[in-house]
Protein backbone atom coordinates (compact mmCIF):
# COMPACT_ATOMS: atom_id res chain seq x y z
CA UNK A 1 0.00 0.00 0.00
CA UNK A 2 1.30 3.42 -0.86
CA UNK A 3 0.34 6.44 1.10
CA UNK A 4 -0.04 9.43 -1.17
CA UNK A 5 1.11 12.64 0.41
CA UNK A 6 -1.54 15.35 0.67
CA UNK A 7 -1.05 18.34 -1.61
CA UNK A 8 0.89 21.02 0.25
CA UNK A 9 -1.95 23.50 0.74
CA UNK A 10 -4.33 20.87 2.09
CA UNK A 11 -1.62 19.55 4.40
CA UNK A 12 -0.98 23.06 5.73
CA UNK A 13 -4.67 23.63 6.36
CA UNK A 14 -4.89 20.32 8.17
CA UNK A 15 -1.83 21.08 10.32
CA UNK A 16 -3.22 24.49 11.13
CA UNK A 17 -6.52 23.02 12.41
CA UNK A 18 -4.92 20.19 14.34
CA UNK A 19 -2.56 22.58 16.16
CA UNK A 20 -5.54 24.35 17.72
CA UNK A 21 -7.86 23.70 20.64
CA UNK A 22 -11.45 22.78 19.75
CA UNK A 23 -12.86 26.27 20.26
CA UNK A 24 -10.10 27.85 18.24
CA UNK A 25 -10.79 25.43 15.41
CA UNK A 26 -14.28 26.93 15.20
CA UNK A 27 -12.75 30.40 15.01
CA UNK A 28 -10.42 29.29 12.24
CA UNK A 29 -13.35 27.80 10.34
CA UNK A 30 -15.12 31.15 10.73
CA UNK A 31 -12.06 32.92 9.32
CA UNK A 32 -12.19 30.65 6.30
CA UNK A 33 -15.91 31.42 5.99
CA UNK A 34 -15.22 35.14 5.98
CA UNK A 35 -12.51 34.77 3.38
CA UNK A 36 -14.42 32.72 0.82
CA UNK A 37 -13.69 34.62 -2.40
CA UNK A 38 -16.56 36.18 -4.30
CA UNK A 39 -17.67 34.34 -7.42
CA UNK A 40 -16.03 35.65 -10.57
CA UNK A 41 -18.21 37.87 -12.71
CA UNK A 42 -18.99 35.12 -15.22
CA UNK A 43 -20.89 33.07 -12.62
CA UNK A 44 -22.80 35.81 -10.88
CA UNK A 45 -25.81 35.47 -13.13
CA UNK A 46 -25.71 31.71 -13.37
CA UNK A 47 -29.26 30.34 -13.43
CA UNK A 48 -28.53 27.73 -10.76
CA UNK A 49 -28.03 30.52 -8.26
CA UNK A 50 -31.58 31.68 -8.63
CA UNK A 51 -33.21 28.33 -8.31
CA UNK A 52 -35.24 28.43 -5.14
CA UNK A 53 -34.49 25.39 -3.02
CA UNK A 54 -37.28 24.86 -0.54
CA UNK A 55 -36.08 23.97 2.96
CA UNK A 56 -32.48 23.82 1.91
CA UNK A 57 -30.35 24.48 4.94
CA UNK A 58 -27.31 25.83 3.24
CA UNK A 59 -27.37 26.00 -0.50
CA UNK A 60 -23.80 25.79 -1.68
CA UNK A 61 -22.97 26.17 -5.36
CA UNK A 62 -19.75 24.81 -6.79
CA UNK A 63 -18.34 25.67 -10.18
CA UNK A 64 -15.36 23.74 -11.50
CA UNK A 65 -13.16 24.74 -14.44
CA UNK A 66 -10.42 22.64 -15.96
CA UNK A 67 -7.86 24.64 -17.91
CA UNK A 68 -5.92 23.52 -20.99
CA UNK A 69 -2.99 22.84 -18.66
CA UNK A 70 -5.23 20.40 -16.75
CA UNK A 71 -5.24 22.70 -13.75
CA UNK A 72 -8.48 22.74 -11.78
CA UNK A 73 -10.14 25.90 -10.52
CA UNK A 74 -12.94 25.70 -7.98
CA UNK A 75 -15.37 28.54 -7.30
CA UNK A 76 -18.03 28.35 -4.62
CA UNK A 77 -20.71 30.44 -3.00
CA UNK A 78 -22.97 29.99 0.00
CA UNK A 79 -25.06 32.47 1.98
CA UNK A 80 -23.58 34.57 4.78
CA UNK A 81 -26.13 32.92 7.08
CA UNK A 82 -24.40 29.57 6.55
CA UNK A 83 -20.89 30.25 7.83
CA UNK A 84 -20.05 26.59 8.41
CA UNK A 85 -20.87 25.74 4.82
CA UNK A 86 -18.91 28.77 3.62
CA UNK A 87 -15.97 27.69 5.76
CA UNK A 88 -16.00 24.17 4.31
CA UNK A 89 -16.16 25.58 0.79
CA UNK A 90 -13.33 28.03 1.47
CA UNK A 91 -11.07 25.23 2.73
CA UNK A 92 -11.59 23.35 -0.51
CA UNK A 93 -11.18 26.44 -2.70
CA UNK A 94 -7.90 27.31 -0.99
CA UNK A 95 -6.66 23.75 -0.59
CA UNK A 96 -7.32 22.65 -4.15
CA UNK A 97 -6.07 25.84 -5.81
CA UNK A 98 -3.57 25.13 -8.58
CA UNK A 99 -3.86 21.35 -8.45
CA UNK A 100 -4.12 19.26 -11.58
CA UNK A 101 -7.02 16.97 -12.39
CA UNK A 102 -5.13 13.91 -11.21
CA UNK A 103 -4.05 15.59 -8.00
CA UNK A 104 -7.60 16.65 -7.16
CA UNK A 105 -8.94 13.17 -7.87
CA UNK A 106 -6.22 11.70 -5.63
CA UNK A 107 -7.25 13.75 -2.59
CA UNK A 108 -8.51 11.22 -0.06
CA UNK A 109 -12.29 11.24 0.21
CA UNK A 110 -11.98 11.30 3.97
CA UNK A 111 -9.84 14.44 4.05
CA UNK A 112 -12.63 16.42 5.80
CA UNK A 113 -12.65 13.88 8.61
CA UNK A 114 -8.97 14.45 9.30
CA UNK A 115 -9.22 18.14 10.25
CA UNK A 116 -10.23 17.51 13.84
CA UNK A 117 -13.59 19.17 13.31
CA UNK A 118 -15.85 16.26 14.19
CA UNK A 119 -15.92 17.18 17.87
CA UNK A 120 -16.13 20.90 17.22
CA UNK A 121 -18.98 20.89 14.71
CA UNK A 122 -20.23 17.27 14.89
CA UNK A 123 -19.51 14.35 12.52
CA UNK A 124 -22.81 14.87 10.71
CA UNK A 125 -21.85 18.40 9.69
CA UNK A 126 -18.39 17.31 8.63
CA UNK A 127 -20.13 14.96 6.23
CA UNK A 128 -21.39 18.09 4.51
CA UNK A 129 -17.82 18.89 3.52
CA UNK A 130 -17.23 15.30 2.44
CA UNK A 131 -20.22 15.64 0.13
CA UNK A 132 -18.81 18.90 -1.20
CA UNK A 133 -15.46 17.28 -1.96
CA UNK A 134 -17.30 14.44 -3.69
CA UNK A 135 -19.30 16.86 -5.82
CA UNK A 136 -16.12 18.71 -6.74
CA UNK A 137 -14.38 15.53 -7.84
CA UNK A 138 -17.45 14.49 -9.80
CA UNK A 139 -17.42 17.79 -11.70
CA UNK A 140 -13.69 17.43 -12.32
CA UNK A 141 -14.31 13.98 -13.81
CA UNK A 142 -17.00 15.37 -16.09
CA UNK A 143 -14.87 18.28 -17.28
CA UNK A 144 -11.49 16.65 -17.63
CA UNK A 145 -9.96 16.65 -21.09
CA UNK A 146 -9.77 13.01 -21.94
Amino acid at each position, binding site marked *: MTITALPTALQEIKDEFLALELRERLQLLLEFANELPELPERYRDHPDLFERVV*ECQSPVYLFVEVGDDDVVQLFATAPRE*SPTTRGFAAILVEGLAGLTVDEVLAVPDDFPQTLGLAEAVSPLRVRGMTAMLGRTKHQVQLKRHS
Partner: protein
Amino acid sequence: MTVGFDDAAKFAEYAHPERLVSTEWLAAHLGDEGLVVVESDEDVLLYETGHIPTAVKIDWHTDLNDPVLRDFVSGERFAQLLGEKGIGRDTTVVIYGDKNNWWAAYALWIFTLFGHEDVRLLDGGRDKWIAEGRELTTDVPTPAAVEYPVVARDDSKVRAFKEDVLARLGKGPLIDVRSPEEYSGERTEIPGYPTESALRPGHIPSAASVPWARAAAPDATFRTREELEAIYKGEAGLADGDDVIAYCRIGERSSHTWFVLTHLLGFENVRNYDGSWTEWGSAVRVPIVKGADRGEVPAA
Protein backbone atom coordinates in the same frame (compact mmCIF):
# COMPACT_ATOMS: atom_id res chain seq x y z
CA MET B 1 -40.97 32.87 37.67
CA THR B 2 -38.18 35.36 37.94
CA VAL B 3 -38.92 37.62 34.99
CA GLY B 4 -42.36 38.95 34.08
CA PHE B 5 -44.27 37.87 31.01
CA ASP B 6 -44.76 39.70 27.76
CA ASP B 7 -48.39 40.81 27.75
CA ALA B 8 -48.51 41.61 24.02
CA ALA B 9 -52.06 41.39 22.67
CA LYS B 10 -51.11 38.89 19.96
CA PHE B 11 -49.77 36.42 22.53
CA ALA B 12 -52.85 36.72 24.75
CA GLU B 13 -54.84 34.82 22.12
CA TYR B 14 -52.62 31.77 22.44
CA ALA B 15 -53.22 28.97 24.93
CA HIS B 16 -49.95 29.68 26.75
CA PRO B 17 -48.93 33.27 26.11
CA GLU B 18 -46.15 32.97 28.70
CA ARG B 19 -44.18 30.87 26.23
CA LEU B 20 -43.44 33.77 23.87
CA VAL B 21 -41.70 37.09 24.07
CA SER B 22 -41.48 39.76 21.39
CA THR B 23 -38.30 41.41 20.16
CA GLU B 24 -39.44 44.65 21.84
CA TRP B 25 -39.87 42.88 25.15
CA LEU B 26 -36.49 41.20 24.90
CA ALA B 27 -34.70 44.41 23.97
CA ALA B 28 -36.19 46.03 27.08
CA HIS B 29 -35.26 43.12 29.36
CA LEU B 30 -31.72 42.27 28.23
CA GLY B 31 -29.53 42.01 31.29
CA ASP B 32 -32.43 41.44 33.69
CA GLU B 33 -31.60 39.41 36.76
CA GLY B 34 -32.82 35.84 36.33
CA LEU B 35 -32.97 35.95 32.52
CA VAL B 36 -30.63 34.04 30.23
CA VAL B 37 -30.92 34.37 26.46
CA VAL B 38 -29.90 31.34 24.41
CA GLU B 39 -29.22 31.21 20.67
CA SER B 40 -29.72 27.86 18.95
CA ASP B 41 -29.14 27.67 15.20
CA GLU B 42 -28.90 25.20 12.39
CA ASP B 43 -25.40 26.46 11.63
CA VAL B 44 -22.95 25.95 14.47
CA LEU B 45 -20.98 29.09 13.54
CA LEU B 46 -23.83 31.54 13.01
CA TYR B 47 -23.75 32.68 16.65
CA GLU B 48 -20.07 33.58 16.26
CA THR B 49 -20.85 35.93 13.38
CA GLY B 50 -22.96 38.09 15.71
CA HIS B 51 -25.69 37.44 18.26
CA ILE B 52 -28.05 39.25 20.62
CA PRO B 53 -26.07 40.91 23.42
CA THR B 54 -25.72 38.67 26.51
CA ALA B 55 -26.87 35.56 24.58
CA VAL B 56 -25.07 32.25 25.08
CA LYS B 57 -24.96 29.52 22.46
CA ILE B 58 -26.38 26.03 22.76
CA ASP B 59 -25.80 23.83 19.74
CA TRP B 60 -28.21 21.02 18.94
CA HIS B 61 -25.51 18.63 17.72
CA THR B 62 -22.62 19.17 20.05
CA ASP B 63 -24.48 20.18 23.22
CA LEU B 64 -27.86 18.45 23.21
CA ASN B 65 -27.25 15.13 21.46
CA ASP B 66 -25.33 12.26 22.98
CA PRO B 67 -22.05 11.89 21.10
CA VAL B 68 -22.34 8.09 20.87
CA LEU B 69 -25.94 6.93 21.19
CA ARG B 70 -28.70 8.28 19.00
CA ASP B 71 -30.30 9.95 21.98
CA PHE B 72 -30.27 13.21 23.88
CA VAL B 73 -27.80 14.00 26.61
CA SER B 74 -28.21 12.60 30.11
CA GLY B 75 -29.40 14.53 33.13
CA GLU B 76 -25.80 14.86 34.32
CA ARG B 77 -24.61 16.33 31.05
CA PHE B 78 -27.62 18.63 30.78
CA ALA B 79 -27.01 19.93 34.31
CA GLN B 80 -23.36 20.54 33.51
CA LEU B 81 -24.20 22.33 30.25
CA LEU B 82 -26.83 24.63 31.76
CA GLY B 83 -24.69 25.33 34.81
CA GLU B 84 -21.83 26.43 32.58
CA LYS B 85 -24.18 28.74 30.67
CA GLY B 86 -25.25 30.42 33.89
CA ILE B 87 -28.71 28.88 33.86
CA GLY B 88 -30.25 27.78 37.16
CA ARG B 89 -33.34 25.64 37.58
CA ASP B 90 -35.51 28.73 38.15
CA THR B 91 -33.90 30.90 35.48
CA THR B 92 -36.12 32.36 32.78
CA VAL B 93 -34.67 31.12 29.50
CA VAL B 94 -35.52 32.83 26.20
CA ILE B 95 -34.38 30.85 23.19
CA TYR B 96 -34.12 32.20 19.67
CA GLY B 97 -32.57 31.02 16.45
CA ASP B 98 -32.49 31.12 12.69
CA LYS B 99 -34.98 29.67 10.19
CA ASN B 100 -38.26 30.54 11.95
CA ASN B 101 -36.87 29.31 15.28
CA TRP B 102 -36.61 25.79 13.90
CA TRP B 103 -33.67 24.79 16.12
CA ALA B 104 -34.71 27.07 18.93
CA ALA B 105 -37.95 25.09 19.18
CA TYR B 106 -35.94 21.87 19.20
CA ALA B 107 -33.82 23.18 22.09
CA LEU B 108 -36.95 24.28 23.93
CA TRP B 109 -38.48 20.84 23.48
CA ILE B 110 -35.36 19.23 24.95
CA PHE B 111 -35.44 21.67 27.89
CA THR B 112 -39.00 20.42 28.37
CA LEU B 113 -37.84 16.80 28.51
CA PHE B 114 -35.80 17.87 31.53
CA GLY B 115 -38.73 19.75 33.04
CA HIS B 116 -37.18 23.21 32.89
CA GLU B 117 -40.19 25.28 33.77
CA ASP B 118 -39.73 28.76 32.41
CA VAL B 119 -38.47 28.46 28.87
CA ARG B 120 -39.77 30.76 26.13
CA LEU B 121 -39.21 31.48 22.46
CA LEU B 122 -38.45 34.85 20.93
CA ASP B 123 -41.28 35.34 18.41
CA GLY B 124 -39.65 35.89 15.02
CA GLY B 125 -36.28 34.67 16.22
CA ARG B 126 -32.94 35.81 14.90
CA ASP B 127 -34.31 36.97 11.55
CA LYS B 128 -36.80 39.43 13.04
CA TRP B 129 -34.26 40.82 15.50
CA ILE B 130 -31.87 41.51 12.62
CA ALA B 131 -34.58 42.78 10.27
CA GLU B 132 -35.48 45.38 12.88
CA GLY B 133 -31.89 46.56 12.96
CA ARG B 134 -31.40 45.66 16.60
CA GLU B 135 -28.01 45.36 18.20
CA LEU B 136 -25.75 42.37 17.57
CA THR B 137 -22.41 41.62 19.15
CA THR B 138 -19.61 39.12 18.75
CA ASP B 139 -18.74 39.38 22.45
CA VAL B 140 -19.16 35.98 24.00
CA PRO B 141 -20.37 36.26 27.58
CA THR B 142 -18.52 34.35 30.28
CA PRO B 143 -21.23 33.64 32.82
CA ALA B 144 -20.34 32.59 36.34
CA ALA B 145 -21.05 28.89 36.68
CA VAL B 146 -24.31 28.06 38.40
CA GLU B 147 -25.41 24.88 40.14
CA TYR B 148 -28.07 23.18 38.00
CA PRO B 149 -29.60 20.08 39.60
CA VAL B 150 -29.26 16.70 37.92
CA VAL B 151 -32.79 15.94 36.72
CA ALA B 152 -33.67 12.68 35.00
CA ARG B 153 -35.00 13.21 31.49
CA ASP B 154 -38.70 12.37 31.27
CA ASP B 155 -39.30 10.76 27.88
CA SER B 156 -42.85 9.68 28.72
CA LYS B 157 -44.87 12.85 28.13
CA VAL B 158 -43.68 14.81 25.11
CA ARG B 159 -41.49 12.26 23.33
CA ALA B 160 -42.70 9.31 21.26
CA PHE B 161 -40.73 6.28 20.15
CA LYS B 162 -41.34 4.04 17.16
CA GLU B 163 -43.20 1.53 19.31
CA ASP B 164 -45.51 4.28 20.56
CA VAL B 165 -46.31 5.28 17.00
CA LEU B 166 -46.97 1.68 15.97
CA ALA B 167 -49.27 1.20 18.96
CA ARG B 168 -51.20 4.36 18.16
CA LEU B 169 -51.60 3.80 14.44
CA GLY B 170 -55.26 4.27 13.57
CA LYS B 171 -56.11 5.38 17.10
CA GLY B 172 -54.94 8.98 17.02
CA PRO B 173 -53.80 11.62 14.61
CA LEU B 174 -50.29 11.86 13.25
CA ILE B 175 -48.88 15.00 11.70
CA ASP B 176 -46.10 14.72 9.12
CA VAL B 177 -44.37 18.10 9.00
CA ARG B 178 -41.90 17.43 6.19
CA SER B 179 -42.07 18.88 2.70
CA PRO B 180 -44.77 17.55 0.32
CA GLU B 181 -42.06 15.77 -1.73
CA GLU B 182 -40.83 13.86 1.28
CA TYR B 183 -44.40 13.02 2.33
CA SER B 184 -45.35 11.63 -1.04
CA GLY B 185 -42.11 9.70 -1.31
CA GLU B 186 -40.64 11.52 -4.27
CA ARG B 187 -37.52 11.91 -2.21
CA THR B 188 -36.07 10.48 0.98
CA GLU B 189 -34.18 13.58 2.00
CA ILE B 190 -34.54 17.30 1.71
CA PRO B 191 -32.19 19.20 -0.57
CA GLY B 192 -28.95 19.97 1.18
CA TYR B 193 -29.21 17.11 3.65
CA PRO B 194 -27.92 14.17 1.62
CA THR B 195 -26.45 12.55 4.69
CA GLU B 196 -29.69 12.26 6.65
CA SER B 197 -31.51 9.87 4.48
CA ALA B 198 -33.71 6.81 4.87
CA LEU B 199 -33.86 3.59 2.91
CA ARG B 200 -37.52 3.91 1.91
CA PRO B 201 -39.49 7.05 1.04
CA GLY B 202 -43.10 7.85 1.88
CA HIS B 203 -45.06 8.55 5.07
CA ILE B 204 -46.64 6.78 8.01
CA PRO B 205 -50.18 5.60 7.13
CA SER B 206 -52.93 8.02 8.22
CA ALA B 207 -50.53 10.92 8.85
CA ALA B 208 -51.77 14.34 7.75
CA SER B 209 -49.31 16.48 5.84
CA VAL B 210 -48.74 19.93 7.36
CA PRO B 211 -45.28 21.28 6.47
CA TRP B 212 -43.90 22.84 9.64
CA ALA B 213 -43.13 26.28 8.23
CA ARG B 214 -46.79 26.93 7.49
CA ALA B 215 -47.02 27.93 11.15
CA ALA B 216 -44.68 30.83 10.49
CA ALA B 217 -45.52 34.16 8.90
CA PRO B 218 -43.13 35.71 6.34
CA ASP B 219 -41.40 37.71 9.11
CA ALA B 220 -40.66 34.43 10.95
CA THR B 221 -43.16 35.13 13.75
CA PHE B 222 -45.85 32.59 14.55
CA ARG B 223 -49.12 32.97 12.71
CA THR B 224 -52.08 34.20 14.72
CA ARG B 225 -54.17 31.75 16.68
CA GLU B 226 -56.98 32.08 14.16
CA GLU B 227 -54.66 31.23 11.28
CA LEU B 228 -53.17 28.29 13.14
CA GLU B 229 -56.62 26.94 14.02
CA ALA B 230 -57.55 27.06 10.35
CA ILE B 231 -54.47 25.04 9.39
CA TYR B 232 -54.34 22.40 12.11
CA LYS B 233 -58.03 22.02 12.94
CA GLY B 234 -59.66 23.12 9.71
CA GLU B 235 -57.34 21.51 7.17
CA ALA B 236 -55.60 18.74 9.08
CA GLY B 237 -58.70 17.83 11.06
CA LEU B 238 -57.33 17.89 14.61
CA ALA B 239 -60.00 18.20 17.30
CA ASP B 240 -59.72 19.51 20.85
CA GLY B 241 -58.64 16.73 23.17
CA ASP B 242 -56.78 14.78 20.49
CA ASP B 243 -53.52 13.11 21.44
CA VAL B 244 -51.19 13.99 18.61
CA ILE B 245 -47.82 12.68 17.47
CA ALA B 246 -45.73 14.84 15.13
CA TYR B 247 -42.73 13.69 13.17
CA CYS B 248 -40.33 14.86 10.49
CA ARG B 249 -36.90 13.58 9.56
CA ILE B 250 -34.93 13.67 12.79
CA GLY B 251 -37.39 15.44 15.07
CA GLU B 252 -36.29 19.06 14.67
CA ARG B 253 -38.97 20.46 12.40
CA SER B 254 -41.60 18.55 14.36
CA SER B 255 -40.38 20.23 17.58
CA HIS B 256 -41.59 23.45 16.01
CA THR B 257 -45.01 21.92 15.32
CA TRP B 258 -45.03 20.40 18.82
CA PHE B 259 -44.54 23.92 20.20
CA VAL B 260 -47.39 25.29 18.07
CA LEU B 261 -49.85 22.54 19.01
CA THR B 262 -48.92 22.49 22.69
CA HIS B 263 -48.29 26.08 23.63
CA LEU B 264 -50.15 28.09 21.04
CA LEU B 265 -53.21 25.92 20.41
CA GLY B 266 -53.38 24.24 23.81
CA PHE B 267 -53.39 20.54 22.91
CA GLU B 268 -52.40 18.76 26.10
CA ASN B 269 -50.96 15.52 24.83
CA VAL B 270 -48.68 16.18 21.92
CA ARG B 271 -45.58 14.10 21.46
CA ASN B 272 -42.65 14.52 19.12
CA TYR B 273 -41.41 11.33 17.46
CA ASP B 274 -37.75 12.27 17.15
CA GLY B 275 -36.75 8.99 15.50
CA SER B 276 -38.90 10.29 12.68
CA TRP B 277 -38.37 9.35 9.07
CA THR B 278 -34.67 8.49 9.39
CA GLU B 279 -35.78 5.68 11.70
CA TRP B 280 -39.19 4.76 10.26
CA GLY B 281 -38.02 4.82 6.66
CA SER B 282 -35.17 2.44 7.48
CA ALA B 283 -37.01 0.13 9.90
CA VAL B 284 -37.97 -3.40 8.84
CA ARG B 285 -41.63 -4.18 8.16
CA VAL B 286 -43.25 -0.99 9.38
CA PRO B 287 -46.13 0.19 7.19
CA ILE B 288 -45.41 2.95 4.67
CA VAL B 289 -47.69 4.79 2.28
CA LYS B 290 -46.55 6.55 -0.88
CA GLY B 291 -48.35 9.33 -2.68
CA ALA B 292 -50.27 12.39 -1.60
CA ASP B 293 -53.10 10.55 0.19
CA ARG B 294 -52.93 9.75 3.87
CA GLY B 295 -53.51 6.07 3.21
CA GLU B 296 -55.05 3.34 5.29
CA VAL B 297 -53.62 1.79 8.42
CA PRO B 298 -53.15 -1.91 7.66
CA ALA B 299 -55.38 -4.29 9.62
CA ALA B 300 -53.50 -5.73 12.59
